């Protein structure tokens, strides 16, 4: 039933593989799975869980390690950011582009910039982050619908702190 392609005459290009491996190392990639036609390459570094792969998916997918660099990166970090919802619950995230104090509303008496269900475009202002009394308006940077607000007004956030979860 399986009809192997005839491309098997050329051997695997290990120089390319070397390049790929170095790329993975440099960039902290955990796993690479490449397939073109009936050729597929799959590389994994430092992975713990067995990877389930459906046997005949025609997709080429890269899976850089879930978010930031692993192990070493399970950082202490500022504990000040009390998440209003679990930021590890998966899904797409809007993260803080800087460090400062998060505000969900333009002023204490205003309604929030966005809430669960808000549809955002890349230009939508989703919050302000205060640094040295300056309130920087933060844009969504993505298009989608907000599904969770992960920090509360007045929370300290650092660089890359997840602020909102959204679906595209």
């Amino acid at each position, binding site marked *: 039933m399986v009809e192997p392609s005839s491309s098997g005459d050329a051997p695997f290009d290990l120089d390319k593989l070397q390049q790929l491996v170095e790329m993975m*190392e440099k960039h902290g990639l955990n796993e690479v799975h490449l397939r073109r036609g009936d050729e597929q390459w799959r590389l994994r570094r430092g992975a713990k869980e067995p990877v389930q792969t459906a046997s005949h998916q025609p997709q080429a997918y890269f899976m850089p390690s879930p978010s*930031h*660099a692993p*192990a*070493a*990166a*399970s*950082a*202490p*970090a*500022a*504990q*000040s950011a009390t998440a209003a919802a679990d930021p590890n619950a998966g899904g797409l995230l809007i993260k803080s582009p*800087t*460090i*400062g*104090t998060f505000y969900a509303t333009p002023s204490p008496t205003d309604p929030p910039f966005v809430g669960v269900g808000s549809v955002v475009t890349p230009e939508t202002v989703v919050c302000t982050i*205060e*640094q*040295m009394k*300056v309130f920087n308006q933060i844009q969504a940077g993505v298009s989608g619908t907000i599904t969770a607000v992960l920090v509360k007004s007045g929370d*300290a956030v*650092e*660089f*890359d702190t997840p602020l909102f979860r959204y679906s595209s």
Partner: protein
Amino acid sequence: MFQRILVANRGEIALRVFRACREMGIETVAVCSAADRGADYLKAANESICIGPAAANQSYLVIKNIIAAAEIGNVQAIHPGYGFLSENEHFAEVCRECKIEFIGPSVDAMAKLGDKVTAKEIAKSAKVNLVPGSDGLITSESEALVIAEKIGYPVLIKATAGGGGKGMRVARNDISLKAGLKAAAMEAEKAFNNAGVYLEKYIENPRHVEVQIIADLHGEVVHLWERDCSSQRRHQKLIEESPAPNLPQSVREDICKAAVRLIQTANYTNAGTVEFIVDKNNQFYFIEVNARIQVEHPVTEMVTGVDLIQQQIKVASGEPLPWKQRSIPCNGSAIEVRINAEDPDNDFRPSPGKITKLRIPGGNGVRWDSHIHEGYVVGPYYDSMIGKLIVHKPTRPEAIACMKRCLDEFVVEGIKTTIPLLKRILNHTAFVEGKMDTTFIEQKLLAK
């Protein structure tokens, strides 16, 4: 005394400050870029805040991010370390406007000493020697001859608009001075459309000698003796030591006193370094003040027994210096080598990567200041210095023997380092005899 300090730096100097604070019972807040997040050395701080992506100009150099971290981290003071924002007077000003003490000199002193012209004026009024020169443009050949006679040959003819060596001539007698003046002026006219030239004494193969000083907020200034940092490659210090070898005791005392005078005149406070060049006749000339702690501060700590970082913090909090000048010793001989992640076989190109094996030497007289460990990844984003190895022994020959032993024991795998070059320097006659100048590594040791 402060209860909580933010350290606006990374790597070994951040760890150095965390350690000093921990021993004083002061809490610390670390800032880190995304590249340093989760690094082992951050565990030595009480809290760690990520202030931006890897690039320093988006993290360690962004004043508002550091101030925001200081406010969130609820600190009373910021230690800037060296490099990054440490000599940025605007940063010091913002800190203090935000009611956060900047652990360093006053903004005014930083500004004055940061400006070359003002710094020279201060030196003059403190009766500290500058490299003698014409004090302005040369207007005639006869004027040049008079000045040259006054300051003594050799002299350097420099274009006032100059740069890159253009319009520059060394003259060793009246004849070459006359010829040089014309040639330099013509070259300068051509290159910069400005024929103006001036004279300066030419210091051949100078030594780099610097004096560590610390001053409190109550007018007390002391020096902690000098360091010799002549072992340089392309103006980058490779090896530093204290005391400076082959410098007569009277010169050592004179140069240290000159540094104190200059610092007093500038109303400078906290730790600082006054840099001099020293010629073959042990004449010394002021170059500049480094208004911060320096990489090579440990050699001074070893010979004086003073913890400079702790003293910086005490002074910044208003404590008076606990000793007078006469009670600061200079015991034995201390040498520091900088271990850089660079490839000596490849024009000292940075050599980032993962450290796959690491054996740090130890034992009697050995100090190691570093944040690295086996498995640490040296990133491509920051300075290539990954650690400082310091030895302290009763005499300089013993210190050299100890350092050589240490470098023989040192194992770093996965990245290239400057250790092979350091070994060569330590075995070079000029170094062994203490007759280094700032050119010997490039002109003698590395010359092909």
